[in-house]
């Protein structure tokens, strides 16, 4: 079976689409045939982050409604092989997504031989978010070091444990915590929740910490997922995260403030 992974958060704007793009690209770079689906019906954005916005002809809802075949709607990524994007509809509403329709697309992707299906969830806990997580085997819970994001992540964990296909069958979705927009300097100053605090509160295994980084904006400006920027801190942190997801043991990086000189250390 294809392994289905939802990237979810509850709260909006925490980095789900950035993460979905980087994650799917990282999996494909390692040779896995990967599809990444935008579930944010009405607010399509994954296409922009992946740099394929001008090649969208058909979308996810067209496929669900049998207005286009999956092969017609899938967009081949221009950066890496083995990667395909299924864009969201820009015009319909979220009710277009049904469990049967989504399930059929998942089955068809499996038939086409995809190893991984990455589902970029919309914010909130409404239908779009529910459908994005429904068939998931794994969930990447994206959390910012900030009170409302942590609380919403806990809400989402509750839904993963009760409202998914796996939960309904008495199985569980594997949960992974990904902390993004982390700023070690602010943590050190006591202005930002530390990684350890978030872990203690949510009690979900940590799969990565992505630092707050200018490279993310640059990547979205150019339409190339940040993981392709191999010199950037965020790009490297995303690469570590993909490797951990695939079972490698990789130490966490970018958690400490860069070393300062002796005097600054003493008085800063």
């Amino acid at each position, binding site marked *: 079976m294809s392994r289905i992974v939802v990237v979810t958060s509850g709260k909006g704007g925490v980095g789900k689409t950035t993460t979905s793009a980087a994650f799917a690209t990282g999996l494909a770079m390692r040779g896995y045939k990967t599809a990444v689906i935008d579930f944010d019906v009405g607010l399509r954005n994954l296409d922009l982050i992946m740099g394929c916005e001008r090649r969208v002809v058909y979308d996810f809802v067209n496929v669900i409604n049998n207005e286009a075949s999956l092969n017609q709607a899938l967009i081949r990524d221009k950066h890496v092989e083995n990667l395909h994007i299924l864009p969201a509809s820009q015009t319909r509403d979220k009710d277009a997504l049904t469990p049967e329709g989504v399930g059929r697309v998942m089955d068809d992707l499996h038939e086409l031989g995809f190893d991984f299906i990455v589902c970029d969830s919309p914010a909130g806990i409404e239908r779009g978010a529910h459908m994005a997580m429904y068939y998931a085997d794994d969930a990447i819970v994206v959390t910012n070091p900030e009170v409302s994001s942590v*609380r919403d992540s*806990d809400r989402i964990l509750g839904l993963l444990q009760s409202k998914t296909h796996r939960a309904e069958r008495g199985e569980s979705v594997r949960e992974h915590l990904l902390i993004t927009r982390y700023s070690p300097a602010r943590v050190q*100053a006591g202005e930002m*929740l530390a990684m350890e605090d978030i872990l203690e*509160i949510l009690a979900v295994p940590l799969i990565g910490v992505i630092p707050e980084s200018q490279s993310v904006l640059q990547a979205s400006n150019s339409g190339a997922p940040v993981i392709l920027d191999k010199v950037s801190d965020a790009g490297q942190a995303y690469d570590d995260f993909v490797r951990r997801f695939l079972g490698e043991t990789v130490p966490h990086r970018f958690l400490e403030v860069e070393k300062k000189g002796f005097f600054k250390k003493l*008085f*800063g």
Partner: protein
Amino acid sequence: MGWFNYFKQSKPTSAKVAKERLQIVIAHERLDRNGPEYLPQLRRDIMEVIRKYVPISDEQVNVQFEKGADFDVLELNIALPDRDH
């Protein structure tokens, strides 16, 4: 951390406050989630009844639901106001 900061740490940092607030609110929400659907309404009703007799704030009433092996337990904790008030 510079060692001068050591003397400035009289007040808890805002991150520490955030952590404590989160721990409390998330603990409550988890209990609601795992408990029966009537729990939030039950809590409101109980508050209303008690307020007929003593003035209390929301934080002073703690309704907890715990799942046991054979039976579930509903635990009600009410902290009454200070006696000299």
